[in-house]
């Protein structure tokens, strides 16, 4: 048997060509007479061979030579069976070498080779194939799963149409700096493609559709090439700034057999880039000598070690930590914890850590008819930025936000830089500055005690006993039932009430938002996050926006099918309230009637029954609950169901915001 340099077995009988040839020959046999009957005398029908094929020497030889028998498997040499070891088995071996837990897919013919390898050759274990009803769901699941486990999952999609379905979720992962590994099928060789729909779904350069929102892509043409690109994809995705990557799996490469597999390349993840020592020392000097340094964190902490480092830095300086909530960055009941923009207005030094929007942090934009902008900063305030995003950005999509000049810019990963920044702060600290820092700490503790009282008054004063249910009431009822559990909030927050009332200490207890604000993220990302928590036996809680749920409610079926425990509480406010506000602004600015804003913004008439929706997909449904007095019993029932290892949806009719 002849082997090509890529390891592919030279084909002696091509299964597809064989079948195609039979089909064509058969068709010709049937139709020649009929065609002849209508042809004018003297004309001859064209030969019935595939119209675009001019056989190569190799192809022609394959058609006439005796099939060569391979030595792999009982079927070796059997006509109609794959000769040799399927390429997709090698692909799976590479994936296994990366310790990938899950491949999430909506089944696709262009991925059938790998699909079969996962469930037969790999026995559907590590990676396990999970079923979703939309590629956007699968990609968002991988997004949420990573943020809990720190491990990438693979979203396996059909080429072209599947990738287009996934595109919005890829954009969210891109904006949220999450390394989802995208894989899609494609058929490169026009002479090998199945005609019709499979050809419609084939594409010259599939990654072009999403190249602006992924960090790297490749379309390997040999197994050696695949092995190297798989390892490279993983390395690139997992080097801060984390981002999605895409590998295109050629159908022929998946399906054809080879005599032996190439070696699996070794892979090591590069150490994350830490800040330049001189720049770090300059930053430390500014922070130590500031009268009121404020640290603002968005996607700052990748692990619990990052949280611990950030606490250490803030305590060394007694600096207020403003949490923008991109990740669980800081214990929310710590006296130095804050949210909102007020601390920035009082700062003389602002340190921004992995900020999505430094400009928006230090400037206010008022969405009025004049589009007003104003700086939040005190005159002379100094700005320091540490972000890995400075190391990699693209031009098309504007998630890079406005340009913000800063005094010290450190292009590096925050978590990798914090230890050296802590040491530099210690080195710069003098007894005189220590006294200033200590005094600042006392003020922070007093302010923290007041903030607790303010939280209680705000909660009681915001429609505590009203129907529909107030956000503060729901969050307080939940807290009373979960505070002794090993809980985690896997969906978006609810008006920051969990951050005001609950006690977040561990990095896994909060995963931030979607990144790109693409609606339809929350439910599937919560499912992916819950999958990560399942391994740890935790109680995952998802406060689910109703509009977001309806983008791809099939994620509920995935919960039931794969037995993923998750407490979902539907924040059922029956409208796209964000858009309502925009409509009201437009009408008011134009001085037009104010009673039409509900058109195309409300989700009512009929109201959606989320309990019935859940029930229909095998998830226990409770509700609707619109009386706050009924909440506690419903929540207790739901938590019991989740503790049994099952998902549940509790439909709660809520105040608008």
């Amino acid at each position, binding site marked *: 048997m002849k082997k090509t340099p890529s390891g592919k077995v030279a084909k002696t009988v091509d299964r597809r060509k064989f079948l195609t040839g039979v089909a064509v020959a058969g068709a010709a046999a049937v139709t020649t007479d009929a065609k002849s009957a209508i042809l004018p005398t003297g004309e001859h029908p064209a030969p019935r061979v595939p119209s675009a094929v001019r056989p190569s020497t190799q192809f022609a030889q394959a058609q006439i030579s005796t099939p060569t028998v391979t030595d792999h498997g009982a079927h070796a040499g059997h006509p109609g069976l794959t000769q040799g070891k399927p390429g997709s088995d090698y692909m799976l071996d590479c994936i296994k070498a990366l310790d990938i837990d899950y491949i999430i897919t909506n089944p696709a013919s262009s991925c059938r080779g790998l699909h079969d390898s996962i469930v037969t050759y790999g026995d559907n274990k590590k990676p396990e194939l999970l079923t979703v009803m939309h590629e956007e769901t699968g990609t968002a699941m991988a997004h949420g799963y990573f943020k809990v486990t720190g491990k990438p999952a693979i979203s396996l999609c059909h080429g072209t149409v599947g990738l287009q379905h996934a595109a919005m979720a890829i954009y969210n992962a891109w904006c949220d700096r999450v390394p989802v590994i995208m894989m899609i099928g494609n058929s490169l060789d026009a002479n090998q493609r199945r005609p019709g729909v499979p050809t419609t779904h084939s594409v010259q350069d599939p990654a072009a559709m999403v190249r602006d929102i992924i960090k790297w892509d490749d379309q390997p043409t040999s197994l050696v090439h695949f092995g190297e690109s798989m390892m490279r994809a993983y390395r690139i995705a997992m080097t801060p700034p984390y981002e999605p990557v895409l590998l295109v799996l050629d159908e022929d490469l998946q399906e054809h057999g080879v005599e032996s597999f190439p070696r699996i390349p070794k892979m090591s993840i590069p150490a994350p880039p830490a800040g330049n020592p001189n720049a770090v020392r300059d930053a430390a000097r500014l922070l130590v000598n500031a009268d009121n340094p404020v640290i603002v964190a968005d996607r700052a902490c990748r692990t619990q070690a990052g949280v611990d480092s950030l606490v250490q830095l803030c305590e060394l300086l007694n600096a207020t930590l403003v949490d923008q909530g991109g990740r669980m960055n800081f214990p*929310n*009941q710590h006296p130095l914890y804050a949210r909102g923009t007020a601390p920035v207005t009082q700062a003389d030094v602002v340190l921004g850590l992995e900020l999505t929007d430094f400009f928006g942090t230090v400037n206010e934009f*008022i*969405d*009025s*008819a*004049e*589009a*007003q*902008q*104003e700086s939040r900063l005190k005159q002379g305030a100094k700005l320091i930025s540490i972000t890995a995003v400075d190391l990699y950005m693209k031009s098309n999509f504007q998630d890079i936000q406005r340009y913000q000049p800063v005094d010290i810019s450190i292009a590096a990963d925050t978590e990798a830089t914090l230890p050296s920044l802590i040491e530099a702060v210690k080195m710069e600290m003098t007894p005189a500055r220590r006294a200033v820092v200590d005094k600042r700490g006392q003020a922070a503790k007093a302010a923290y005690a007041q903030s*607790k009282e303010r*939280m*209680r*008054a705000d*909660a*009681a*004063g*915001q*429609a*505590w*006993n*009203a129907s*529909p249910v*107030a*956000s503060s009431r729901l969050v*307080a*009822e939940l*807290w*009373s039932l979960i*505070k002794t559990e090993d809980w985690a909030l896997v969906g978006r927050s609810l*008006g*920051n009430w969990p951050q*005001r*009332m*609950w*006690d977040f200490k561990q990095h896994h207890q909060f995963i931030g938002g979607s990144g790109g604000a693409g609606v339809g993220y929350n439910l599937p990302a919560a499912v992916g996050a819950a999958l990560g928590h399942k391994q740890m036996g935790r109680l995952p809680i998802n406060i689910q926006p109703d509009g977001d749920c309806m983008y791809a409610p099939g994620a509920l079926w995935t919960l039931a099918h794969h037995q993923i425990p998750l407490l979902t509480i539907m924040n059922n406010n029956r*409208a796209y*309230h964000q858009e*309502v*506000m925009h409509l*009201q*602004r437009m*009408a*008011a*600015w134009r*001085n*037009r*009637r*104010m*009673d039409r*804003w*509900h058109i195309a913004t409300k989700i009512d008439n009929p109201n959606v029954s989320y309990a019935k929706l859940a029930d229909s997909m095998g998830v226990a449904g409770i509700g609707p609950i619109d009386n706050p007095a009924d909440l506690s019993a419903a929540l207790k029932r739901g938590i019991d169901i989740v503790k049994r290892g099952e998902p549940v949806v509790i439909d709660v009719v809520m*105040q*608008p*915001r």
Partner: protein
Amino acid sequence: MKLAIFAPVMISAALFAGAAAVSAPAPQGDAVKGKASFLKYGCYTCHGYEGQGAAATGKKLAPNPLAYPAFSGFVRSTSRDMPPFTEQILPEQDLMDIHAYLRSIPPAPNPATIPLLQGAGG
């Protein structure tokens, strides 16, 4: 050009609910009609069905709304995130009814009497 940079404008907290001295007489208004108008004009979408407010979207309006002249003045002339509602699109009587509805909202319970809140906050 749409963009405009200007100096910070301080919005007095006294413009919103809880304003201390309400010396002006309450205007005529129908609380029942006011509730309907509160819904019709979409006030509730930012301020909540009870005018309770929400941190990110709308100030607290009730209980104890500010006096009608200040309330009306803000509604008619604001240039902040909330757009101005002129008399042409929100008639004066409707605004007075809305104010009556906000005045009818009962006081909030004392947080010290709510056990759930004693356990909140870590």
